[in-house]
Protein backbone atom coordinates (compact mmCIF):
# COMPACT_ATOMS: atom_id res chain seq x y z
CA UNK A 1 0.00 0.00 0.00
CA UNK A 2 3.00 2.28 -0.37
CA UNK A 3 1.31 4.04 -3.28
CA UNK A 4 -1.89 4.64 -1.28
CA UNK A 5 -3.33 8.10 -1.83
CA UNK A 6 -0.43 9.47 -3.88
CA UNK A 7 -2.66 11.36 -6.34
CA UNK A 8 -4.75 12.80 -3.53
CA UNK A 9 -1.68 14.04 -1.69
CA UNK A 10 -0.18 15.48 -4.87
CA UNK A 11 -3.38 17.37 -5.66
CA UNK A 12 -3.33 19.13 -2.27
CA UNK A 13 0.43 19.67 -2.25
CA UNK A 14 0.48 23.31 -3.27
CA UNK A 15 -2.01 24.40 -0.62
CA UNK A 16 -0.41 22.15 2.02
CA UNK A 17 3.12 23.47 1.38
CA UNK A 18 2.41 27.17 1.22
CA UNK A 19 -1.15 27.65 2.61
CA UNK A 20 -2.66 28.54 -0.72
CA UNK A 21 -6.44 28.98 -0.58
CA UNK A 22 -8.87 31.23 -2.36
CA UNK A 23 -10.21 34.76 -2.08
CA UNK A 24 -13.55 35.99 -3.37
CA UNK A 25 -13.02 39.29 -5.15
CA UNK A 26 -16.75 40.05 -4.89
CA UNK A 27 -17.10 39.89 -1.08
CA UNK A 28 -13.41 39.87 -0.06
CA UNK A 29 -13.72 36.67 2.00
CA UNK A 30 -10.72 34.29 2.23
CA UNK A 31 -11.10 30.52 2.19
CA UNK A 32 -8.87 27.65 3.13
CA UNK A 33 -8.73 25.00 1.74
CA UNK A 34 -9.41 26.49 -1.69
CA UNK A 35 -13.06 26.43 -2.79
CA UNK A 36 -14.54 26.19 -6.25
CA UNK A 37 -17.51 28.44 -5.34
CA UNK A 38 -17.93 31.31 -2.84
CA UNK A 39 -20.66 30.11 -0.43
CA UNK A 40 -21.86 33.69 0.19
CA UNK A 41 -21.85 35.16 -3.32
CA UNK A 42 -22.65 31.88 -5.10
CA UNK A 43 -22.97 32.63 -8.84
CA UNK A 44 -21.83 36.27 -8.42
CA UNK A 45 -18.66 35.21 -6.63
CA UNK A 46 -15.23 35.48 -8.28
CA UNK A 47 -12.65 33.22 -6.66
CA UNK A 48 -8.95 33.63 -7.20
CA UNK A 49 -5.94 31.77 -5.82
CA UNK A 50 -4.60 33.38 -2.65
CA UNK A 51 -1.42 32.64 -0.74
CA UNK A 52 -1.99 33.31 2.95
CA UNK A 53 0.76 35.16 4.83
CA UNK A 54 0.95 32.27 7.29
CA UNK A 55 0.39 34.42 10.36
CA UNK A 56 -2.45 34.09 12.81
CA UNK A 57 -3.45 33.24 16.36
CA UNK A 58 -4.56 30.17 18.22
CA UNK A 59 -8.36 30.10 18.32
CA UNK A 60 -8.54 26.95 20.42
CA UNK A 61 -6.44 23.84 20.98
CA UNK A 62 -6.18 20.36 22.47
CA UNK A 63 -3.21 18.45 23.85
CA UNK A 64 -3.07 14.97 22.35
CA UNK A 65 -1.82 12.32 24.75
CA UNK A 66 -3.46 9.26 23.22
CA UNK A 67 -2.26 9.33 19.65
CA UNK A 68 -2.72 7.14 16.61
CA UNK A 69 0.17 4.73 15.92
CA UNK A 70 1.98 7.03 13.44
CA UNK A 71 2.05 9.95 15.88
CA UNK A 72 3.16 8.15 19.08
CA UNK A 73 6.72 9.44 18.71
CA UNK A 74 5.42 13.01 19.08
CA UNK A 75 3.20 12.59 22.17
CA UNK A 76 2.22 14.85 23.87
CA UNK A 77 1.53 17.26 21.02
CA UNK A 78 -0.83 20.12 20.35
CA UNK A 79 -3.49 20.29 17.67
CA UNK A 80 -5.06 23.71 17.30
CA UNK A 81 -7.51 25.69 15.30
CA UNK A 82 -5.54 28.60 13.98
CA UNK A 83 -7.29 31.75 12.88
CA UNK A 84 -5.28 33.29 10.08
CA UNK A 85 -4.97 37.07 9.93
CA UNK A 86 -6.99 37.09 6.70
CA UNK A 87 -9.89 35.42 8.51
CA UNK A 88 -9.89 31.76 7.51
CA UNK A 89 -9.47 29.07 10.17
CA UNK A 90 -7.59 25.81 9.81
CA UNK A 91 -6.54 22.87 11.95
CA UNK A 92 -2.83 22.28 12.46
CA UNK A 93 -0.24 20.98 14.88
CA UNK A 94 1.62 23.53 17.02
CA UNK A 95 5.36 22.83 17.31
CA UNK A 96 8.50 24.37 18.84
CA UNK A 97 6.76 24.93 22.19
CA UNK A 98 5.96 22.79 25.21
CA UNK A 99 2.22 21.90 25.30
CA UNK A 100 1.81 23.48 28.77
CA UNK A 101 2.90 26.86 27.39
CA UNK A 102 0.35 27.01 24.56
CA UNK A 103 -2.39 29.59 25.09
CA UNK A 104 -5.52 30.71 23.29
CA UNK A 105 -4.83 33.94 21.42
CA UNK A 106 -1.11 33.19 21.05
CA UNK A 107 0.47 34.57 17.86
CA UNK A 108 1.73 31.83 15.55
CA UNK A 109 3.26 31.52 12.11
CA UNK A 110 3.34 28.64 9.68
CA UNK A 111 6.39 26.43 9.31
CA UNK A 112 7.22 23.51 7.03
CA UNK A 113 7.14 20.05 8.62
CA UNK A 114 6.68 16.39 7.94
CA UNK A 115 2.99 15.58 8.54
CA UNK A 116 3.04 11.79 8.19
CA UNK A 117 4.52 8.99 6.15
CA UNK A 118 2.95 5.90 4.67
CA UNK A 119 5.15 3.32 6.37
CA UNK A 120 8.90 2.84 5.87
CA UNK A 121 8.67 2.45 2.10
CA UNK A 122 5.81 4.83 1.44
CA UNK A 123 5.47 8.44 0.47
CA UNK A 124 6.31 11.18 2.97
CA UNK A 125 3.67 13.88 3.36
CA UNK A 126 4.91 17.41 4.06
CA UNK A 127 2.93 20.50 4.89
CA UNK A 128 2.23 23.32 7.30
CA UNK A 129 2.34 23.28 11.06
CA UNK A 130 2.43 26.38 13.24
CA UNK A 131 4.93 27.67 15.78
CA UNK A 132 4.84 30.65 18.15
CA UNK A 133 6.27 33.83 16.64
CA UNK A 134 9.69 34.48 18.16
CA UNK A 135 13.16 35.75 17.30
CA UNK A 136 14.02 32.79 15.05
CA UNK A 137 10.81 33.28 13.07
CA UNK A 138 11.82 36.88 12.42
CA UNK A 139 9.36 38.32 14.98
CA UNK A 140 10.65 39.78 18.21
Amino acid at each position, binding site marked *: MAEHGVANIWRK*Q*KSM*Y*SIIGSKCTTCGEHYFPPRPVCPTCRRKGQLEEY*QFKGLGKIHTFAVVRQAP*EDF*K*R*QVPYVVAQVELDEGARLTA*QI*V*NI*EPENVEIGMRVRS*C*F*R*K*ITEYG*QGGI*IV*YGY*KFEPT*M*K*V*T*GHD
Partner: protein
Amino acid sequence: MVGIIGYGVYIPRYRIKTEEIADVWGDNGPQMARGLGVFEKSVPGPDEDVATISVEAARNAIKYAGIDPRDIGAVYVGSESHPYAVKPTGTIVAEAIGCTPYLTAADYEFACKAGTAAIQTTMGLTQSKMIKIGLAIGSDTAQGRPGDALEYSAAAGGVAVLIGEDNPVATIEETLSFTTDTPDFWRREGEDFPSHGARFTGEPAYFRHVGEAAKAMLKKTDTTIDDYDYFVFHMPNGKFPVNMGKQLKVPKEKLEDSLVVRQIGNTYSGSAMMGMARILDIAKPGEKIFMVSYGSGAGSDAFVLKVEEEILKHRGEVPTVDDFIERKTYVSYAVYAKYRRKIKALG
Protein backbone atom coordinates in the same frame (compact mmCIF):
# COMPACT_ATOMS: atom_id res chain seq x y z
CA MET B 1 30.64 39.54 -10.25
CA VAL B 2 29.21 36.26 -9.02
CA GLY B 3 28.51 36.01 -5.35
CA ILE B 4 26.08 35.33 -2.54
CA ILE B 5 22.97 37.49 -2.96
CA GLY B 6 21.26 36.00 0.08
CA TYR B 7 21.58 33.24 2.65
CA GLY B 8 19.47 31.68 5.35
CA VAL B 9 19.97 29.04 8.00
CA TYR B 10 17.90 26.69 10.09
CA ILE B 11 18.88 24.76 13.21
CA PRO B 12 16.31 22.54 15.00
CA ARG B 13 15.30 23.48 18.50
CA TYR B 14 16.47 20.39 20.39
CA ARG B 15 19.96 19.88 21.89
CA ILE B 16 21.63 17.00 23.66
CA LYS B 17 24.70 17.55 25.82
CA THR B 18 27.88 15.58 25.19
CA GLU B 19 27.82 14.62 28.87
CA GLU B 20 24.34 13.10 28.49
CA ILE B 21 25.54 10.84 25.66
CA ALA B 22 28.74 9.98 27.53
CA ASP B 23 26.74 8.90 30.60
CA VAL B 24 24.91 6.27 28.54
CA TRP B 25 28.10 4.73 27.16
CA GLY B 26 30.24 4.95 30.28
CA ASP B 27 32.53 7.65 28.93
CA ASN B 28 33.85 10.62 30.88
CA GLY B 29 31.53 13.41 29.76
CA PRO B 30 33.49 16.59 30.55
CA GLN B 31 36.69 14.99 29.22
CA MET B 32 34.91 13.88 26.03
CA ALA B 33 33.41 17.35 25.48
CA ARG B 34 36.77 19.05 25.96
CA GLY B 35 38.62 16.49 23.84
CA LEU B 36 36.20 16.72 20.93
CA GLY B 37 35.51 20.41 21.32
CA VAL B 38 31.78 19.63 21.07
CA PHE B 39 29.72 20.51 24.14
CA GLU B 40 26.24 19.93 22.78
CA LYS B 41 24.69 19.08 19.43
CA SER B 42 21.44 19.86 17.67
CA VAL B 43 18.79 17.16 17.34
CA PRO B 44 15.94 17.30 14.81
CA GLY B 45 12.37 16.93 16.04
CA PRO B 46 10.38 13.82 15.08
CA ASP B 47 8.77 15.73 12.20
CA GLU B 48 11.94 17.34 10.85
CA ASP B 49 14.18 16.02 8.09
CA VAL B 50 16.44 17.37 5.36
CA ALA B 51 13.47 18.55 3.28
CA THR B 52 11.88 20.55 6.12
CA ILE B 53 15.22 22.01 7.27
CA SER B 54 16.10 22.95 3.68
CA VAL B 55 12.75 24.65 3.10
CA GLU B 56 13.04 26.72 6.28
CA ALA B 57 16.62 27.76 5.41
CA ALA B 58 15.65 28.53 1.79
CA ARG B 59 12.65 30.65 2.85
CA ASN B 60 14.99 32.67 5.09
CA ALA B 61 17.48 33.08 2.21
CA ILE B 62 14.75 34.38 -0.14
CA LYS B 63 13.50 36.82 2.49
CA TYR B 64 17.07 38.00 3.12
CA ALA B 65 17.78 38.55 -0.58
CA GLY B 66 14.37 40.08 -1.26
CA ILE B 67 14.05 38.27 -4.60
CA ASP B 68 11.14 36.79 -6.51
CA PRO B 69 11.55 33.00 -6.09
CA ARG B 70 10.56 32.54 -9.73
CA ASP B 71 13.94 34.03 -10.69
CA ILE B 72 15.62 30.94 -9.25
CA GLY B 73 16.69 28.73 -12.16
CA ALA B 74 18.37 25.89 -10.28
CA VAL B 75 17.94 24.17 -6.91
CA TYR B 76 20.64 21.81 -5.67
CA VAL B 77 20.33 20.22 -2.26
CA GLY B 78 23.48 18.65 -0.84
CA SER B 79 23.02 16.11 1.94
CA GLU B 80 23.96 12.65 3.12
CA SER B 81 20.56 12.17 4.77
CA HIS B 82 18.06 12.86 1.98
CA PRO B 83 14.63 11.58 3.12
CA TYR B 84 14.24 9.45 -0.02
CA ALA B 85 16.89 7.20 -1.59
CA VAL B 86 15.14 7.84 -4.91
CA LYS B 87 13.09 11.04 -5.27
CA PRO B 88 14.78 14.40 -5.10
CA THR B 89 14.64 16.63 -2.03
CA GLY B 90 15.17 19.55 -4.44
CA THR B 91 11.69 19.27 -5.95
CA ILE B 92 10.06 19.42 -2.51
CA VAL B 93 12.09 22.53 -1.69
CA ALA B 94 11.39 24.15 -5.06
CA GLU B 95 7.64 23.58 -4.73
CA ALA B 96 7.54 24.86 -1.13
CA ILE B 97 9.40 28.09 -1.94
CA GLY B 98 7.33 28.72 -5.05
CA CYS B 99 9.95 28.56 -7.79
CA THR B 100 8.52 25.65 -9.83
CA PRO B 101 8.15 24.64 -12.63
CA TYR B 102 10.73 26.39 -14.87
CA LEU B 103 13.94 25.37 -13.18
CA THR B 104 16.46 22.57 -13.00
CA ALA B 105 16.98 20.63 -9.79
CA ALA B 106 19.00 17.71 -8.46
CA ASP B 107 20.26 16.32 -5.20
CA TYR B 108 23.93 16.23 -4.37
CA GLU B 109 25.79 13.78 -2.20
CA PHE B 110 29.45 14.13 -1.16
CA ALA B 111 29.48 13.47 2.58
CA CYS B 112 29.98 16.84 4.31
CA LYS B 113 30.82 18.92 1.25
CA ALA B 114 27.76 18.36 -0.95
CA GLY B 115 26.51 21.87 -0.11
CA THR B 116 29.68 23.63 -1.25
CA ALA B 117 29.73 21.50 -4.41
CA ALA B 118 26.22 22.86 -5.06
CA ILE B 119 27.54 26.42 -4.60
CA GLN B 120 30.22 25.77 -7.24
CA THR B 121 27.64 24.35 -9.68
CA THR B 122 25.30 27.33 -9.31
CA MET B 123 28.29 29.69 -9.72
CA GLY B 124 29.03 28.09 -13.08
CA LEU B 125 25.40 28.24 -14.17
CA THR B 126 25.00 31.91 -13.27
CA GLN B 127 28.36 32.97 -14.75
CA SER B 128 27.54 31.20 -18.00
CA LYS B 129 24.15 33.01 -18.02
CA MET B 130 22.25 29.72 -18.13
CA ILE B 131 20.30 30.87 -15.08
CA LYS B 132 19.80 34.15 -13.22
CA ILE B 133 19.87 32.87 -9.65
CA GLY B 134 20.84 29.49 -8.23
CA LEU B 135 19.89 28.04 -4.85
CA ALA B 136 22.54 25.86 -3.21
CA ILE B 137 21.67 24.10 0.03
CA GLY B 138 23.77 22.09 2.47
CA SER B 139 21.48 20.33 4.94
CA ASP B 140 21.67 17.21 7.07
CA THR B 141 20.15 15.23 9.91
CA ALA B 142 23.27 13.18 10.45
CA GLN B 143 23.28 9.95 12.43
CA GLY B 144 26.06 8.16 14.26
CA ARG B 145 25.80 4.52 15.34
CA PRO B 146 24.77 4.47 19.03
CA GLY B 147 27.95 4.27 21.10
CA ASP B 148 30.21 5.25 18.20
CA ALA B 149 32.45 8.32 18.49
CA LEU B 150 30.40 9.91 15.69
CA GLU B 151 27.33 9.98 17.89
CA TYR B 152 28.82 12.86 19.88
CA SER B 153 29.00 15.15 16.88
CA ALA B 154 26.48 14.06 14.20
CA ALA B 155 23.94 16.88 14.23
CA ALA B 156 21.19 18.56 12.23
CA GLY B 157 20.94 21.89 10.47
CA GLY B 158 20.94 23.51 7.08
CA VAL B 159 22.20 26.52 5.17
CA ALA B 160 20.71 27.86 1.94
CA VAL B 161 22.72 30.17 -0.28
CA LEU B 162 21.42 32.14 -3.26
CA ILE B 163 24.06 32.64 -5.92
CA GLY B 164 23.71 35.39 -8.50
CA GLU B 165 25.51 38.24 -10.22
CA ASP B 166 23.32 41.22 -9.25
CA ASN B 167 24.26 43.09 -6.06
CA PRO B 168 25.88 40.27 -4.08
CA VAL B 169 26.29 40.73 -0.33
CA ALA B 170 29.58 38.86 -0.67
CA THR B 171 31.41 38.21 -3.92
CA ILE B 172 33.06 34.86 -4.48
CA GLU B 173 36.42 35.87 -5.86
CA GLU B 174 37.82 32.39 -6.36
CA THR B 175 37.04 28.73 -5.82
CA LEU B 176 38.98 25.52 -6.35
CA SER B 177 38.82 21.92 -5.20
CA PHE B 178 41.15 19.13 -4.13
CA THR B 179 39.66 15.67 -4.67
CA THR B 180 41.02 12.10 -4.35
CA ASP B 181 39.62 8.62 -3.73
CA THR B 182 40.12 8.27 0.02
CA PRO B 183 37.84 5.79 1.85
CA ASP B 184 37.73 7.44 5.28
CA PHE B 185 33.94 7.37 5.84
CA TRP B 186 31.07 5.72 3.99
CA ARG B 187 27.57 4.30 4.24
CA ARG B 188 26.45 1.43 2.05
CA GLU B 189 22.95 1.34 0.51
CA GLY B 190 20.37 0.12 3.04
CA GLU B 191 22.59 0.69 6.07
CA ASP B 192 21.21 2.91 8.82
CA PHE B 193 24.54 4.18 10.08
CA PRO B 194 27.83 5.12 8.45
CA SER B 195 31.18 3.40 8.98
CA HIS B 196 34.49 5.17 9.23
CA GLY B 197 38.20 4.55 9.30
CA ALA B 198 38.64 5.91 12.87
CA ARG B 199 42.09 7.53 13.01
CA PHE B 200 42.36 7.25 9.23
CA THR B 201 39.82 10.12 9.05
CA GLY B 202 42.54 12.51 10.28
CA GLU B 203 45.88 12.92 8.49
CA PRO B 204 45.31 11.23 5.09
CA ALA B 205 41.72 12.45 4.88
CA TYR B 206 40.66 15.71 6.55
CA PHE B 207 44.05 17.35 7.08
CA ARG B 208 45.47 16.40 3.69
CA HIS B 209 42.47 17.61 1.68
CA VAL B 210 41.68 20.77 3.64
CA GLY B 211 45.38 21.63 3.90
CA GLU B 212 46.17 21.04 0.22
CA ALA B 213 43.07 22.92 -0.96
CA ALA B 214 43.98 25.85 1.30
CA LYS B 215 47.60 25.92 0.09
CA ALA B 216 46.53 25.65 -3.56
CA MET B 217 44.14 28.55 -3.05
CA LEU B 218 46.78 30.76 -1.46
CA LYS B 219 49.09 29.95 -4.37
CA LYS B 220 46.43 30.55 -7.04
CA THR B 221 45.39 33.89 -5.57
CA ASP B 222 48.97 34.81 -4.67
CA THR B 223 47.92 35.72 -1.14
CA THR B 224 48.98 34.85 2.40
CA ILE B 225 47.09 34.14 5.63
CA ASP B 226 47.51 37.85 6.50
CA ASP B 227 45.31 38.88 3.55
CA TYR B 228 42.19 37.36 5.17
CA ASP B 229 40.08 38.47 8.11
CA TYR B 230 38.20 35.24 8.79
CA PHE B 231 38.84 31.55 8.24
CA VAL B 232 36.28 28.77 8.05
CA PHE B 233 37.25 25.10 7.94
CA HIS B 234 34.86 22.17 7.89
CA MET B 235 34.04 21.16 11.47
CA PRO B 236 33.67 17.39 11.98
CA ASN B 237 34.41 18.26 15.63
CA GLY B 238 35.89 21.23 17.46
CA LYS B 239 39.41 19.82 17.38
CA PHE B 240 40.13 19.31 13.66
CA PRO B 241 39.53 22.88 12.40
CA VAL B 242 41.60 24.29 15.29
CA ASN B 243 44.49 21.93 14.47
CA MET B 244 44.15 22.80 10.78
CA GLY B 245 44.41 26.46 11.71
CA LYS B 246 47.57 25.78 13.71
CA GLN B 247 49.14 23.87 10.80
CA LEU B 248 48.43 26.75 8.42
CA LYS B 249 49.51 29.32 11.05
CA VAL B 250 46.11 31.01 11.13
CA PRO B 251 45.84 33.34 14.16
CA LYS B 252 43.33 31.93 16.64
CA GLU B 253 41.10 35.03 16.58
CA LYS B 254 40.56 34.72 12.82
CA LEU B 255 39.13 31.21 13.20
CA GLU B 256 37.27 31.48 16.49
CA ASP B 257 34.06 33.11 15.18
CA SER B 258 33.31 30.28 12.75
CA LEU B 259 33.47 27.44 15.32
CA VAL B 260 29.73 26.83 15.65
CA VAL B 261 30.47 23.10 16.08
CA ARG B 262 31.00 23.64 19.83
CA GLN B 263 27.33 24.46 20.42
CA ILE B 264 25.54 22.56 17.66
CA GLY B 265 27.85 19.75 16.57
CA ASN B 266 28.71 18.82 13.01
CA THR B 267 25.84 19.70 10.70
CA TYR B 268 27.59 17.76 7.89
CA SER B 269 26.69 19.34 4.53
CA GLY B 270 25.73 22.44 6.48
CA SER B 271 28.89 22.52 8.61
CA ALA B 272 31.39 24.78 6.83
CA MET B 273 28.47 26.74 5.34
CA MET B 274 27.08 27.36 8.86
CA GLY B 275 30.49 28.72 9.90
CA MET B 276 30.47 30.93 6.80
CA ALA B 277 26.92 32.13 7.55
CA ARG B 278 27.95 33.11 11.09
CA ILE B 279 30.85 35.15 9.68
CA LEU B 280 28.53 36.81 7.13
CA ASP B 281 26.29 37.74 10.09
CA ILE B 282 29.09 39.77 11.67
CA ALA B 283 31.72 40.68 9.04
CA LYS B 284 32.22 44.28 7.88
CA PRO B 285 32.15 45.34 4.22
CA GLY B 286 35.57 44.91 2.64
CA GLU B 287 36.59 42.01 4.89
CA LYS B 288 37.73 38.78 3.31
CA ILE B 289 36.71 35.24 4.22
CA PHE B 290 38.72 32.11 3.44
CA MET B 291 36.61 28.95 3.57
CA VAL B 292 37.51 25.30 2.98
CA SER B 293 34.89 22.58 3.22
CA TYR B 294 35.63 18.87 3.46
CA GLY B 295 33.68 15.83 2.40
CA SER B 296 34.77 12.29 3.16
CA GLY B 297 35.55 10.08 0.26
CA ALA B 298 37.24 12.66 -0.17
CA GLY B 299 37.51 16.24 -1.28
CA SER B 300 37.70 19.87 -0.24
CA ASP B 301 36.25 22.99 -1.87
CA ALA B 302 38.05 26.24 -1.11
CA PHE B 303 36.46 29.69 -1.51
CA VAL B 304 37.63 33.26 -1.18
CA LEU B 305 34.80 35.66 -0.36
CA LYS B 306 34.78 39.42 -0.07
CA VAL B 307 32.03 41.06 1.96
CA GLU B 308 30.34 43.93 0.08
CA GLU B 309 28.63 47.16 1.22
CA GLU B 310 25.35 45.61 0.03
CA ILE B 311 25.31 43.35 3.10
CA LEU B 312 24.37 46.28 5.34
CA LYS B 313 21.04 46.66 3.50
CA HIS B 314 19.99 43.07 4.23
CA ARG B 315 20.93 42.48 7.85
CA GLY B 316 18.11 42.14 10.34
CA GLU B 317 15.72 40.71 7.74
CA VAL B 318 16.06 37.14 8.98
CA PRO B 319 17.29 35.40 12.16
CA THR B 320 21.05 34.97 12.52
CA VAL B 321 23.02 31.79 13.23
CA ASP B 322 23.38 32.96 16.84
CA ASP B 323 19.60 33.45 17.15
CA PHE B 324 19.16 29.80 16.23
CA ILE B 325 22.03 28.63 18.46
CA GLU B 326 20.49 30.43 21.44
CA ARG B 327 16.99 29.01 20.80
CA LYS B 328 17.27 25.58 22.40
CA THR B 329 15.62 22.94 24.53
CA TYR B 330 17.64 20.11 26.01
CA VAL B 331 16.49 16.51 25.64
CA SER B 332 17.58 13.37 27.46
CA TYR B 333 19.24 10.46 25.65
CA ALA B 334 15.96 8.55 25.85
CA VAL B 335 13.99 11.30 24.09
CA TYR B 336 16.82 11.73 21.59
CA ALA B 337 16.71 7.98 20.85
CA LYS B 338 12.94 8.19 20.35
CA TYR B 339 13.16 11.20 18.01
CA ARG B 340 16.06 9.74 16.00
CA ARG B 341 14.32 6.37 15.55
CA LYS B 342 16.95 4.50 17.47
CA ILE B 343 14.06 2.72 19.20
CA LYS B 344 13.18 0.27 16.47
CA ALA B 345 10.08 -1.25 18.12
CA LEU B 346 8.28 2.05 17.54
CA GLY B 347 8.54 1.68 13.76
